[in-house]
């Protein structure tokens, strides 16, 4: 199996990409949309390993680092929802040119899954694989602010903790960046994330595998039913796996991974018969 690393996209910001393939055109290919902030780091090794396993199953994978993250150019504060959606499209072009797949989809975990949905809504793909997508980005952003305050409460002298999440929001609204675990988040990112008040009303792909943890079932149910009503094939399943994106070790969520490989192979066979 080949693992090619390269820069792609515009001259500035240069984007970093990794292509996993077996040297031949792949019948099925995936663009991986990475999770956000610390979750991109904690899941990086696992998702790289998962990519290698997919490539062994004749599924081509393109992983990339949005600008302002990882090995790509740019600063953290330049990362926005618009920029990552645009760059997902650029990564897709690389896959189309280099892997020449019969069918192409997006894969995402958490924030990455939300990006996958929004990117597919803008420019359709054949299928989506979503792991524990974030349906409410506004709540997610506030959770990040709360986590930062918790960290400060643990690590800093009491006299230095002088702010609340509301004050952090006011900072953003005043046009200033906020520091979350060393990641500088911008007012533009905040504005764009809270503007996504709901997911697309119509399904962003004709085939979707949506894997969630049991506690996410209720929040997902409405969207799943709505998308099904448009005739799309939505395979929604809950799998009891630990919250692996909060854990710094490298184990792969085997049940999520195995079900995804099985689904990709089966749905690829269906596609071939049509």
């Amino acid at each position, binding site marked *: *199996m*080949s*693992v090619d*690393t*390269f*820069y792609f996209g515009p001259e500035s910001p240069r984007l970093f990409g*990794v292509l996993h393939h077996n040297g031949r055109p792949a019948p099925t290919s995936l663009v991986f949309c990475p999770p956000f902030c*610390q979750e991109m*780091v*904690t899941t*990086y*090794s*696992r998702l*790289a*390993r998962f990519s*290698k396993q997919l490539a062994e199953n004749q599924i081509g994978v393109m992983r990339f680092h949005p600008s302002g*993250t*990882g*090995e790509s150019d740019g600063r*953290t504060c330049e990362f926005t929802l618009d920029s990552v959606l645009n760059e997902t499209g650029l990564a897709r072009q690389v896959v189309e040119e280099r892997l020449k797949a019969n069918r192409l989809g997006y894969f995402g975990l958490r924030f990455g899954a939300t990006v996958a949905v929004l990117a597919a809504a803008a420019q359709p793909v054949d299928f989506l694989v979503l792991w524990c997508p974030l349906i409410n980005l506004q709540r997610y952003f506030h959770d990040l602010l709360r986590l930062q305050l918790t*960290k400060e409460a*643990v*690590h*800093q*002298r009491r006299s*230095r903790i002088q702010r609340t999440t509301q004050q952090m929001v006011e900072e953003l609204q005043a046009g200033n960046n906020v*520091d979350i*675990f*060393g*990641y*500088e988040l911008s007012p533009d990112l905040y504005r764009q994330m809270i503007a996504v008040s709901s997911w697309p009303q119509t399904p962003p792909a004709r085939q979707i595998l949506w894997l969630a943890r049991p506690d996410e079932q209720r929040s997902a149910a409405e969207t799943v039913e709505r998308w099904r009503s448009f005739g799309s094939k939505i395979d929604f399943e809950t799998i009891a796996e630990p919250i692996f994106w909060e*854990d*710094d*070790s*490298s184990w792969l969520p085997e049940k999520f991974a195995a079900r995804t490989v099985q689904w990709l192979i089966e749905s690829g066979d269906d596609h071939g018969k049509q």
Partner: protein
Amino acid sequence: MASNELVTLSRDGWPMHGVVHLPATEPRRRIGVVVLQGNLDSSPKFGAHWMFRRVSDALAEAGYYALRFDNRGTCDSPGECDLKFRDRIIDLCAAAKFFRSEYRLDGVVFWGLCMGAAVAVHASAHLNRHEKPDAMILCSVLAHPDDASLPEFGYRATTMSAFLRNTGSGNLSSKLRRFLTDRSYRRNAYECVKAVVVGYAHRNPTLRELQSDVSRVGALLTRYDRPMLMIFGEKDPFWISFTKWVNPDDKLRLSQKKIPPKLVVMEDGDHVFASKAQMSELIESTVEWLNTLWAPTNLTSTYMERPNGILIKPAVD
């Protein structure tokens, strides 16, 4: 302006993916810093809050070369490997040789976080006199064996001594009260006990090997005879481990070494320096210290540039 290039180095048939940061201007002395991530196989080479990327960018801006790489069979390196601590030492030795020869370096420095720092210390002892690092920067160094039984190092089981040390402090009545009233606390306590039982029921030879290697870090620090900078966050449990268990009252006699290490303890600092202010201080400490070793001197590179641009090292009688 500094720039990056992607490189591949290899060892034992394992190709490893790396990124080299080239200095913004051609430096007088060609010094390269190998930047090492802090976990076993779970952390990518750019690190939490891109810290290794930021440190490397700053080094390049300050006139140093920097190399970051993914160990064999992990992250962006091809293949899958059940990586061990000792593999990381071997990989680092290979990376240092690659870096020194490919980039015609006059000096190599190891910069490591946590387990990366422990790997740097071990590798410095493995390399011969001409290959060993000319200096080391050790951040939140992993030097106490009990600290090695953590999930981020790939071990879910823990040992009784680590368990007792991590739970022994604090008020007993408040613990009892929380145990009775707090469901999360009860669940955590259950998980801790389970981890200890599992640790003993399934003797983990890899963990024992890691702990044995980590327990030697202190002794190896005393043997390293070149400049060394140690950086800790004041709130990092590893700083407490280091002062309380590894080097209480300068047991290792580091202050009596011919070149005693410089120690920086960052106020309110955490294990991975996770804030803009901490990162600024970390980078400043790193670059300033390196500059005291190399930049102000009038030393020039031992390499000469031919008219065709190729660097050569003149033969020495």
